[in-house]
């Protein structure tokens, strides 16, 4: 069974008096272990699609199945648990809590999963070492460089062993060298078996992934394989 199955998904927003159809019938399947990029210009509905796939929102109509669970009518708490257990996020602006240390930031998803302190620390340390920041666990994010912060975010996204890692413009705030490093990290994780979805507007970055899905005006343009 596919990890993600979208059928006839629409999403309608109300902005003041105006109704906006952000998604107008998306059909999409993503298999376990894939490394996919979702690409599209701003206003294409790419962000809306990402919110649905990331369990941050529910569709207006159609069905979204993630790891066999239909989230179309899920409650807020169910969505939160999905995000906690099955999805890891990496954001453009890192979104680390600046008051917490690197270790505590990585521990955060496990705290909401109700894992004991001892196990949390072990797993967080392992994840941080996996992204190559084992010597910075007691620093705060503000003491790190952009590339390091993004690595911490990757470690945080990995730590609950999610089925799916979501990266929203992960290289947007990084220079090209560190950006390339982060992309290399994703590639490595994919080779170790993680399913990764990369959201970007940059086709150069999308070219790194074996499969790209292009969104335009709320529809999937051509699901095609990168050769």
């Amino acid at each position, binding site marked *: 069974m596919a990890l993600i199955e979208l059928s006839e998904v629409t999403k309608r927003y109300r902005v003041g008096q105006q109704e906006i159809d952000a998604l107008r019938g998306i059909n999409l399947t993503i298999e376990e272990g894939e490394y996919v990029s979702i690409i599209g210009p701003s206003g294409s509905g790419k962000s809306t699609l990402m*919110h649905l796939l*990331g369990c*941050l*929102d529910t569709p207006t109509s159609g069905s979204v199945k993630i790891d066999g669970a239909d989230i179309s009518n899920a409650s*807020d*708490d169910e969505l*939160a*648990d999905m*995000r*906690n*257990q099955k999805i890891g*996020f990496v*954001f453009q*602006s890192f*979104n*680390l*809590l600046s*008051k917490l240390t690197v270790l505590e930031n990585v521990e*955060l*998803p496990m*705290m*909401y*999963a*109700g894992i004991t302190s001892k196990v949390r620390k072990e797993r967080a340390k392992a994840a941080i070492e996996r992204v190559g920041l084992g010597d910075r666990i007691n620093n705060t994010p503000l003491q790190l460089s952009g590339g390091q912060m993004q690595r911490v975010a990757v470690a*945080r996204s990995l730590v*609950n062993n999610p089925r799916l890692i979501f990266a929203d413009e992960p290289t947007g705030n990084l220079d090209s060298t560190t950006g390339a490093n982060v992309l290399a990290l994703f590639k490595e994780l994919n080779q170790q078996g993680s399913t990764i979805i990369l959201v970007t507007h940059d086709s150069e970055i999308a070219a790194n992934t074996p499969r790209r899905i292009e969104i335009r005006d709320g529809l999937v343009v051509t699901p095609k394989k990168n050769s």
Partner: protein
Amino acid sequence: MNFLNSIATGIREIWSHKFRSILTMLGVILGVASLLSTFALTDGMAKGSREMMTTMGGVERVNIVPQEVPQDQVMLVDTSPGRTVADAEIIRRSATQVTHVTPVYEQPCTLTKGGVLFRSQLSGVWPDFVPINNHVIAHGRNISQIDLDEARRVCVIGTKVIEQLWPDTPKIKPLGETIIVNNRPFVVVGIFEHYESDDDKIAREYGRKPAAFTTRRNRYFNPYDRKNGTVIIPFDTAFYEFRSASMAGVVDQGPIYKVDGLTFKAADPANLQPAMDQVSSLLLQTHRGVEDFTLDTRQDWAESIEKNARNIKLSGGLIASISLIVGGIGITNIMLASITERIREIGIRRAVGARRKHIFLQIIVESTVIGLIGGILGLGAAFGMIELLEYISEGANPPVVELSSAVLSFLFALIIGMLSGVYPAWSASRITPIEALRYG
């Protein structure tokens, strides 16, 4: 996320904004301080009243006091002579359940001896006054029936009177000495025991000065002090010497005099009610059926002390708690502002899997911890405030901190802290992760 983690997160958040947190707490601190000091003040007043009651005799002492006549007897009111010495007489002769009774004539008096002057309260009484009021004669004798019959100018005085009139000879026992009471010479025939609290007695026996004279508290009202200032003279003497000053009523009542007080003591405290019924029916005769009197027992007084104490404490507490509520509103205000500031943090927590209740709990814990720390500091501030109150208030009973009041104030602060976080926590938990993340 378990509860301990939430508390740790809350404390960390408060710690990271120390100055702001202290300012927020200040409302709670001052609120708790004013609440607890109000409680201490009212508890002190209640304690003073209780102490006074115990020095003035047991529950078997009953006062007969005037009251408004019932509506249907208003036209009969002039037919009753009111409380007269005849009432005392009939109780003495006919009330079998009553062992002691005395009429009381009361008047402020000026006592002089050799140019030294002392003001006190003069009581013209029957000899029964002494057992009724738990007085003890230490030296000399009580006033007697012969003193009454002959209206002799004799008096029995308390130790404070002696202290004041013979300031240079502290150990004098002035039996047989003559003192001037309201310009008339009286012979001292008896001296009351020195009344004092157990603390003072112990202090005196160990050679120290009694606490009442070594601290600033000597300005406070002291029931023992008042009892030591007693001056009694025979009732009839009081009337022959001073009656023009207190002749009451519009009708000339001849030799039957109105009295200022009428007090009796029941034979058996367990049978207080039969004694009171007996006295009531006797007095209805002398008052010609007009119910213009009522029996005021110590029990009633004790109850009314407790009731008043409770009422004052409650209303004082209510007023003082307003400031605590204001403190709570301050917390709400700051929390709302801090949520706007932390909307991104909330978004991140939600994105990694925090449920709404986790966010709610986090904010509530924060405001509760502010209430908690504010409450603890407030208790400290209250003790400072109470010291200040003791120092500046004159003539009142010293404030007393009771454990229950402290616990109550502290719990109230905690609850206020919790409640003040409800609205901010609720609005924080309503923020959707998408809008929170877009915010940054």
